[in-house]
């Protein structure tokens, strides 16, 4: 066993509450009168890659700050790896790697020196293996060559990578990554996705926030959607997708007539001047099609579409990608 493996092997694996890596109960944070996070009940299963989605300003970073004990909840409770935060932070945090609201390092130090300082600042960072661990972490995020450069000379993408390297200095049970691909080019984003897959395959639970669904859709097993501080939905990706009701669309010149038929079946149709669409809400599309034709609607096209996850996300959050507050 190399020293690095030895270091990894000492990670305590005391079982935690009901297989949840993170659990919040009615978690609330108010700034003044505004509930920026409003009665949040999050449940992040151990071993999942959990996408924490929401438009800018929906309260993701504020939630993450409470998870990590940086700020105190106004109400409610956080369990991190089965430990109540912030009371038992000293037990939980050594097993958690985090990136919060972007990377932050000392501009006058090199990437390597920055990692040395942060590793020396807490428990479980064996000085004997520090150099090796730093090199491995830099290599994982593709910064080996830039490691001796001063942080102030780093691009935003490189800074994010250094932040990730810092979260990977030791083996962690849980990674909490707040918008880790912010400021990265498509290539970098792809690399981070692959890195997250690797980590998850290793058994690390990854909690990942983003305002861009497309970026994390491909790696997540679970998703929670936030809007204006509220949790709109959470669950496995598959469940969220199947919750979305299919929509039928009929292309026709008899728009008024078609709307009447759809309305008679209790569906609320939307239309433009050559088509009508409506959420099916459990009705069989073949019956609707027959009714339309029997009513004399001249059908030029008929389709049933399941909305993309993106549509679900937009319909859940309402505002889409606009800044919420």
């Amino acid at each position, binding site marked *: 066993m190399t020293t690095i493996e030895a270091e990894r092997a000492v990670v305590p694996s005391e079982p935690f509450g009901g297989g949840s890596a993170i659990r919040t109960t009615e978690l609330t944070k108010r700034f003044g009168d505004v509930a920026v996070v409003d009665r949040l009940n999050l449940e992040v299963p151990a071993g999942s890659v959990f996408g924490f989605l929401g438009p800018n300003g929906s309260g993701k970073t504020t939630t993450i*700050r409470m998870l*990590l*004990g*940086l*700020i*105190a909840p106004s109400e409610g409770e956080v369990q991190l790896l089965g430990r109540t935060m912030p009371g038992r*932070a*000293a037990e939980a*945090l*050594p097993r*958690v790697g*985090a990136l*919060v*609201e*972007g*990377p*932050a*390092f*000392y*501009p*006058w130090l090199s990437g390597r020196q920055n990692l*040395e*300082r*942060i590793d*020396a*600042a*807490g*428990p479980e960072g064996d000085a004997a293996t520090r150099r090796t661990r730093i090199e491995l972490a830099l290599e994982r995020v593709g910064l080996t060559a830039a490691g001796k450069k001063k942080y102030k000379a780093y691009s935003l993408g490189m800074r994010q990578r250094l932040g990730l390297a*810092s979260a990977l200095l030791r083996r962690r049970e849980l990674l909490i990554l707040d918008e880790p691909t912010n400021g990265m080019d498509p290539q970098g984003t792809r690399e981070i996705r692959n890195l997250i897959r690797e980590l998850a395959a290793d058994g690390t639970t990854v909690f990942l926030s983003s305002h861009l669904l497309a970026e994390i859709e491909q790696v997540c097993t679970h998703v929670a959607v936030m809007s204006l501080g509220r949790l709109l939905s959470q669950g496995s990706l598959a469940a969220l997708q199947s919750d979305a009701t299919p929509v039928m669309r009929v292309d026709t010149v008899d728009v008024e007539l078609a709307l009447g038929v759809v309305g008679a079946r209790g569906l609320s149709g939307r239309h433009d001047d050559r088509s009508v669409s409506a959420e099916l809400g459990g009705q069989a599309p073949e019956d609707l099609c027959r009714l339309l034709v029997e009513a004399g609607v001249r059908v030029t096209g008929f389709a049933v579409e399941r909305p993309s996850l993106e549509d679900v996300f937009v319909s859940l959050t309402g505002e889409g990608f606009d800044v919420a507050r």
Partner: protein
Amino acid sequence: MLRAELAHLFGRRRVQALLVILALVPIGVVVAIRLSGGPGGGDGPAFLGQITNNGVFAALAALTITLPIFLPLAVAIVAGDAIAGEASLGTLRYLLVRPAGRSRLLGVKALAVVAFCVAAPFVVAAAGLIVGSVLFPVGRVTTLSGDTLSIASGAIRIAGAAGLVGVSLLGLAAIGLFASTLTDIPIGAIAATLGVVILAGVLGTIPQVSAIHPWLLTNGWLSYGDLLRSHVTWTAITRNVALQAGYVLVFGAAAWARLTTRDVLA
């Protein structure tokens, strides 16, 4: 972590520059005295007059010259930046998530500031001693009462004086550290800390408030001069040490109460 913090603090260009400036101040003054051919009489700062006879006194003069402004300025910069500087960079949140532990982080920061408070007057005294002994004749130290001390005893007393100046700065350091936990803007904490020294200095000159004079932060700052009597009188020195300890206790506790409960949003 303390060793890493000390290396981090004293490795910073800014801190090194502060120490260099602190050394340059007495060097400049002593050189100026040498060039002008004498202290020019009158009542300048203590010990300045003796430099021309004995260069060793330059170490004491250096302390006297830097104590009112330069040393407090340097301590305010280092202490005021201790926590607020990390907050403004955003590194505070990563230290806390590491987890460094809030109390432990404050403790380590406090010890590093103490190290600076001690190092700074020694740098000043050493710079004075070196330039004084190069430019002026060196001899045994004559006490304020007129006796002469052995070289060893003189050296010990000068070191003691530097140490006492360091202790005198601790109350200010604690105020600076407390201010540093209040804000995410280091310059704000530094300015507030300097404001306290200036206020104490001003109040100290107003006879109408003489009732509070004994409790002012700066009240006993010059008590280290008592070390240079042939029979050292300890009352003023002890009182100053106790007063500084009081300030450290009060503001240290306030800093702890603040840092362990505050929301870290930066």
